């Protein structure tokens, strides 16, 4: 496999691009009117994980954006998924 220098050569520009895209999305949301939204809250709440000193940040962010409840639900109100748990699904 490769080393850090080669990974940077391969992926630094792409990662820089993704980071700026995320920053611009946050700016864009702040600039526009509208109500609060559980998806945006979940995204912002997961951001500090990026700076944690740990080997599994991707896993931790996926978990932060997951429904943590344990029991099957009686019936589905809709078929799709939106990327962050509805407030009633947090299991808290």
């Amino acid at each position, binding site marked *: *496999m*490769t080393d850090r220098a*080669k*990974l940077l050569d*391969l*992926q630094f520009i792409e990662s820089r691009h993704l980071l700026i895209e995320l920053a611009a999305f946050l700016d864009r949301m702040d600039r526009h009117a509208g109500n609060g939204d559980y998806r945006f809250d979940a995204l912002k709440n997961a951001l500090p994980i990026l700076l944690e000193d740990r080997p*599994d940040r*991707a*896993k931790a962010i*996926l*978990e932060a*954006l*997951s*429904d*943590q*409840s*344990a029991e*099957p*639900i*009686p*019936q*589905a109100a*809709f*078929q*799709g*998924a*939106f*990327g*962050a*748990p509805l407030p009633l*699904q947090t299991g808290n």
Partner: protein
Amino acid sequence: MVSRTTDDYQALALAGCEAVCEPAFWAGFDRSSPQGFYDYFSQLTEYEPRRAAKFGIRHFSWLCINPKEADDPVFAREVMSLIPQFLGAATVLGIGEIGLNKNTRNELAIFEEHVQLALDHDLPILIHTPHLEDKLKGTRLTLDALANFPALDRAKVIIDHVEEHTVAPVLEAGYWAGLTLYPHSKCSLDRAIDMLEVHGPDRLWMNSACDWGVSDPLAVPKCALRMKARGHPAPAIEQVIHENPRRFLSQSPRFVLESLTS
């Protein structure tokens, strides 16, 4: 491949693809009757193998009622009653992609009935895990449900669409894990390679999402190129994109890769 154009088969052939296996899945809309599934199963077992064969590609399929349409148990059981008559088709590998969508009680019941159907016919199983926020819970419910089938050979079960938060429990429980590659929104090429590096290649398998959304039938060969760029040697790439799926799928005696022209 029912959602794809014939151009995709041509591109797959040009990329060196020898075989595709297609799970029964959602049509992009809910079908209005079980008879719609009869036609769909006929398409999967008769027409698609012929369409693929024109490009030298073997087409195999998995049959079930997919989780998105499994929340109505009466409807689902009517569809399931159609499946045994198709299990004798020469290209049917097993039962799939079964599993959960929104993690409902009815989905879980129908999932368990599909597992029993596979056991009754001694077939491999392909399991879908839910999308996005529902994946973690759905994977846990799936693993718990499978644990109630002591007769199940875990080496004949692949749990698909794993991501960083679900891959470890699937592998630790003894199942195969599938990395489904998407251009956007789900598992990327680099993240799949990361999981290979962290968890090892023994029971991991990559597949290209080929559905109604933005997806790329050439995701697997593109991932092979990415593995090469990240310094993975050719034998390691060959293991993941060719040998591993062949090892798992060969548990079905119907999975034969002999040349279509021989």
